């Protein structure tokens, strides 16, 4: 009898931290000490620890702690929604490729190969240049980037079980194709795909902030970690501490979600060890 994953410290600790991060971003209006958009020019670029501004201020005198808290909303949305979308689309594509016959399988796999031929950020850039910069562009671009990876994991799982006897048994007992997929295939594939998807979240948050840094994501003045990095870049040489804070925020969030993904991987044993490295 397996213990609940939440009793496993390798899962529980990062899960609690991840929940905390999401809650802090959600409760931004209650927690942030200042309006993230309002700055006092005479308080420009204060270092962390300045009176009244725990983490200092940015180039327009806006409170950095408040902006970092608010920025979590856009940055986490830009990371979590694409993972959810890619999980759904990838499972659909992988299952279709696995059960749809040889022609469909080859057509889908070769198409995925083309998307795989782009390093992640470049594919995201290619997709995002088609759209007006904003959270929508980030979400769509990252969904396209992450889908092939999920689809491949789903396909591998489906291929593993597609000749299994219990599928044949369900078939001869009269299960239609839809019932077969929903009752027999999805329950087997879903845990592995979900664990894999969890290991993509840290990466996706880092990508989302990266796109904003490149000017393809959320546009100023909306606070977003990557956009803040770009805004604070000119101050890097005179005020390095405020300038690295958004980068550290992304780093911390990414580490928490990556650790959570690793913890979950260990829970599913061999099938977790065989999963591809999280990427791209």
């Amino acid at each position, binding site marked *: 009898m397996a213990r609940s994953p939440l009793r496993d410290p390798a899962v529980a600790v990062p899960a609690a931290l991840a929940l905390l991060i999401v809650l802090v971003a959600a409760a931004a209006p209650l927690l942030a000490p200042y309006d993230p958009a309002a700055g006092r020019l005479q308080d420009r670029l204060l270092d962390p620890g300045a009176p009244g501004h725990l983490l200092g201020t940015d180039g327009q005198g806006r409170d950095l702690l408040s902006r970092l808290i608010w920025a979590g909303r856009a940055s986490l949305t830009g990371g979590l929604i694409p993972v959810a979308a890619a999980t759904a689309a990838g499972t659909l594509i992988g299952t279709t490729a696995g059960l749809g016959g040889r022609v469909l399988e080859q057509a889908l796999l*070769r*198409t995925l*190969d*083309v*998307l795989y*031929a*782009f*390093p*992640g*950020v*470049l*594919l995201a*850039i*290619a*997709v995002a*240049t*088609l759209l007006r910069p904003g959270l929508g562009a980030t979400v769509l671009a990252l969904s396209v980037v992450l889908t092939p990876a999920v689809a491949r994991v789903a396909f591998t799982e489906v291929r593993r079980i597609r000749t299994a006897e219990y599928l044949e048994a369900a078939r001869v007992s009269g299960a239609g194709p839809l019932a077969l997929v929903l009752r027999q295939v999805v329950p087997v594939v879903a845990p592995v795909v979900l664990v894999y998807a969890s290991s993509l979240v*840290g*990466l996706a948050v*880092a990508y989302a*902030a*990266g796109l904003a*840094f*490149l*000017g*393809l994501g959320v546009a100023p003045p909306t606070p977003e970690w*990557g956009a803040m*990095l770009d805004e604070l*870049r000119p101050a*890097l*040489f005179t005020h*390095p*501490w405020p*300038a*690295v804070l958004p*980068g*550290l925020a*992304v*780093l911390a969030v*990414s*580490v928490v*979600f*990556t*650790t959570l993904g*690793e913890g979950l991987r260990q829970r599913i044993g061999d099938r977790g*060890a065989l999963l591809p*490295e*999280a*990427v*791209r």
Partner: protein
Amino acid sequence: MTGFLLRRLLLAVPTLLGVTVVVFATVALVPGDPVAAFLGPGAPPEARAELSARLGLDRPLPLRYLSWLRHALGGDLGTSIADQRPVGGLLLPAIGQTLVLTAAAFLLVLVGGVLLGAVGALRPPGPLGRLSGAATTLAVSAPQYSVALVLIAVVAVRLRWLPAGGTHDVFGDGGFADLARHLVLPAVAAALVPLGLTARVFRAALGSVLAGDLADGLRARGLSRAAVLRHCAHNASPALLAIGGLQLAYLLEGVVFVETLFARPGLGRLLYDALAARDLPLVQGGVLVVAAAFVGVNLLVDTAHAAVDPRTRS
């Protein structure tokens, strides 16, 4: 082996063609009317028709793709909008800069990844093993721009140990030492993610070889610890080739951020500037060059992998 090579080459062709279709589409499908952008909204229809014909925009999309592909294959990637110079001419020097940076970073990836992975595989339960595990997780999840900024803030601005950007000193001699000093921080920033990945994969591969029959046999024959480790590391090393493509992908995408933050005039920096200026032909050319190089290197890596490990040829 020849059969494998042919099969692999044949598979690379449709992939490359797919890449060109995607890249072409990113420009052909961009919303907005280029003719109106050139001539302004009040232009007479004859002028619009003439420009449209001159730019080839009156032809159907598949024909435009074929003519674009023909030019691209001949090295003609169009003209940069911001610079009014051929895209190929802008990309070429940048490619050289990026090659230097990725080569330096790749050296770090191999040395650091193998060492960190070996420590993890040899000392799994102890504090040293746990430390290497934590370092690996941190490396894998550290976004390149965060690492670059922290390095600049701490090593360059605070401690003043190494320069914060550029490729050489303004008044320096531009000699090897000068260039190398400027290369250290960017290479570390670009290397960290693939280094962590390499460590993770090598740790798993070496760990399973060390726990297997080969290691038992070698120990039974009385070989020293070091000799056992040497043989086992040799057996685990094809795992490094298997993730070669992934490492390269991380290096190349890291370059976009690292070159921008460290002000190095490479492909990544060029892409960043092109994106900021919405210079689409340059973005398109840069993405195409990187993706094509990526497909090519993957082909090489797979070939090398098949050459050293016959099991992968099937």
